[in-house]
């Protein structure tokens, strides 16, 4: 690539291999001042790797990086930061054990007489976060806040650090619409100030709403860079996948009358301070979509259903018989499965292989002594790798080396291998590329057809609409409404979520 005069940050001929696997092959890319540059590609295409190389978190094998035309080589992220590159890495990389303000300011805390001036830091941190519509106690530990809040803190930190370039790797994965809008406002302001902004996402809507140019990677190779005005959705998807994708919106809406008999039935099932008593019947062959704002208690409900928290009121019956679920083990014994929201923390066994991750739940159910042989394990893993199209060099690769989306599929495979009757999926499509996204939506529908009962929590209403037989809307840790049949559409759900005050007044 010729030297792009307007480029703030430019990379040429970037190559990176992990072991024998080439994650990036001779990639050229340039980010200009005053543009929002979307970086797109399937899960595992190499986007995050490229970012890590550009910011000194990984070393590169070959290639050069120029900042303002001068060749640079960052040995650590600190050096990149010092030169005005602010980054939000994928999977919030913050310090849960420290306060919010420490997270915002670590490495550059304001000082008085050589000591950190906590008063001033607190003041400034409050001011910064209020710009994002966040009014929280900045002296509290970060771990006491939801993923969304943590994401915003990470963004605020990166923005404050970026004098020249701001890099956002899937910043919107756990944000709701209002928060996304606030973020976009900020990004646009920074763009106007002449920053180069790199934006990675799997939401094509957001790409078209915000960016000026897009660059697509596939299998570690550069496919091309286009101005947003020269391209449409179908073409972007085709660049990413190398083939057309039949998009299917509202294609599979399930008929409620098709559902089978009741599998799980909840009566006043709740836990004080966490989840208000729930009354809900879940049938075989139905998908219950759970919608609600951030912090509305969806995850808490899922934890309760799966026995991670133990209910202190009400009853749960499975197959018409009363059941007690005091631990995930009890739930698994009843044929439940649960893909948690935070896959890094609660889902994957990072150092273990893809194979071991997939067979784990099944083996847990079989117990200590009835071990699956290695051949059996290989077969099961192989089947699911193929069925869910998990992109991995081999079944023996440590799962932590897979891209985020593929990790999600591994966890799904783990539960499918147990042949469950009831699956709870918490944000199963978060951080997943369009192709895989469609794939997971298809799997959900197929499972429903096979007679499974599913509860799927998702913040993407389009998606909820597309597969739900019934939608439960949660608010303030309680079920606020149930929508059926024709009511299942995005507008109606949004309306229900928003009708807070109206209902409260009644």
């Amino acid at each position, binding site marked *: 690539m010729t030297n792009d005069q307007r480029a703030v940050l430019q990379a040429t001929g970037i190559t990176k291999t992990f072991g024998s696997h080439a994650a990036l092959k001779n990639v050229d890319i340039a980010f200009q001042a005053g543009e929002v540059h979307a970086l797109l590609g399937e899960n595992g295409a190499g986007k995050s790797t490229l970012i890590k190389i550009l910011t000194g978190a990984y070393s590169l094998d070959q290639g050069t990086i120029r900042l303002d035309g001068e060749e640079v080589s960052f040995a650590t992220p600190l050096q990149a930061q010092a030169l005005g590159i602010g980054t939000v890495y994928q999977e919030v990389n913050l310090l849960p054990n420290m306060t919010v303000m420490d997270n915002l300011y670590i490495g550059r805390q304001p000082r008085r007489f050589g000591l950190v001036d906590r008063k001033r830091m607190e003041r400034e941190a409050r001011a910064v976060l209020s710009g994002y519509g966040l009014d929280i106690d900045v002296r509290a530990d970060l771990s006491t806040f939801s993923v969304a809040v943590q994401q915003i803190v990470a963004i605020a930190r990166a923005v404050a650090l970026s004098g020249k370039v701001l890099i956002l790797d899937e910043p919107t994965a756990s944000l709701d619409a209002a928060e996304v809008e606030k973020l976009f406002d900020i990004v646009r302001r920074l763009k106007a100030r002449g920053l180069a902004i790199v934006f990675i996402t799997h939401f094509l809507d957001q790409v078209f709403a915000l960016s000026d140019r897009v660059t697509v990677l596939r299998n570690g190779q550069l496919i091309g860079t286009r101005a947003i005005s020269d391209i449409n959705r179908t073409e972007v998807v085709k660049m990413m996948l190398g083939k057309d994708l039949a998009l299917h919106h509202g294609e599979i809406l399930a008929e409620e009358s098709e559902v089978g008999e009741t599998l799980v039935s909840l009566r006043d099932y709740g836990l004080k301070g966490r989840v208000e008593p729930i009354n809900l019947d879940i049938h075989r062959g139905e998908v219950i979509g759970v919608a609600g704002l951030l912090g509305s208690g969806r995850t808490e409900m899922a934890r309760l259903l799966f026995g991670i928290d133990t209910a202190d009121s009400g009853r749960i019956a499975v197959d018409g018989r009363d059941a007690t679920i005091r631990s995930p083990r009890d*739930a698994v014994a009843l044929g439940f499965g649960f893909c948690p929201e935070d896959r890094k923390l609660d889902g994957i*066994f990072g150092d*273990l292989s893809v194979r071991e991750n997939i067979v784990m739940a099944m083996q847990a159910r079989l117990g*200590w002594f009835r071990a699956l042989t290695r051949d059996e394990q290989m077969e099961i893993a192989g089947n699911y790798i193929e069925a869910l199209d998990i992109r991995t060099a081999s079944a023996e690769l440590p799962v932590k080396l897979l891209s985020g989306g593929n990790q999600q599929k591994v966890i799904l495979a783990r539960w499918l291998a147990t042949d469950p009757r009831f699956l709870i999926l918490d944000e199963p499509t978060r951080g997943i590329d369009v192709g895989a996204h469609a794939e997971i939506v298809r799997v959900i529908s197929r499972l429903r057809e096979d007679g499974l009962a599913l509860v799927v929590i998702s913040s993407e209403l389009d998606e909820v609409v597309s597969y739900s037989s019934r939608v439960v809307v949660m608010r303030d840790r309680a079920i606020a409404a149930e929508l059926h049949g024709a009511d299942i559409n995005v507008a109606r759900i949004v309306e229900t979520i928003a009708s807070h005050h109206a209902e409260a007044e009644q």
Partner: protein
Amino acid sequence: MRAQSLSHLFSHQVIALAGVLLINWMVFPGFFDVTWKDGRLFGSLIDVINRGAPVAILAIGMTPIIATRGVDLSVGAVMAVAGAVAATFTVAGHPLVVTLAAALAVAIACGLWNGLLIAFLGIQPFVATLVLMVAGRGLAQLITEGSIVTFSDPALIFIGTGSLLGLPMPAVIALLLMLGAHLFVRRTAMGLFIEAIGTNRSAATYTGLRSRSLILAIYAFGGFCAGVAGIIAAADIRGADANNAGLWLELDAILAVVIGGTSLLGGRFSIPLSVLGAIIIQAMNTGILVSGFPPEFNLIVKAGVIMIILILQSARLGEIVAAIRTKNPLGRKTP
């Protein structure tokens, strides 16, 4: 699979052992001499496996514990307790079976106590086992009332000093225990579960693993191994020395496990490699003994050897070397 087990032959541990043995041979040319005497093998090499057995046995128990991100500091004290129980029982005239059962039962109870604190009260392993490390030795002394309780039951003594097929009993026991434990964890799902819990305890719980009972079982097994080692140590000197039996051996056992490649951060583990680690440590100790160096140099030699082994084993060094090689066009290509 086959290729993998073959590559074990060239693992860091084997190379390290070969290196240590080579140095031993250089400082003491008779190191490899093994003779047959009184129906058993005799020689420095035999001493290495004989003397290495207690630490090897401790390491067998310690490996699963470390693999679950735990640690057991109390094993040395539990050795003393088991030895004390065995000695007092045999002196009181109980038959061997009762004596062994009592000693092992007490040792397992110690392990269960650790496991309870860790799995059910959620106390950090380091402090939880520190309690028994301090108190356990007191318990052992309480049993022996501070003196060395000597015994002369030939059956019990045989465990420490006898030999089977020419090999010293402690080594035979360690070998059997290693094989048993290895086959058990690998033929059942135990190994997988241990690695899962060590890698991500939260995910293990979400997956429906019985983390608590598993952890309890692992510490109980650690206690059992410490008990076996304690019986051997007592039988070896025909007496229970509550003060000194197993003193500081917990550090050797942990070291053996780490040399064997199990990370203190949990996850992957290998019991045979831990045993190899124990043998490496003992080879070093025996080497110091036969070398004739003044004893004040013992610790320095030990520190040096440990550092060399671990640095060679450090993944990072491999990376650095690889980086240097790839920058050097003449260097051979690394796979």
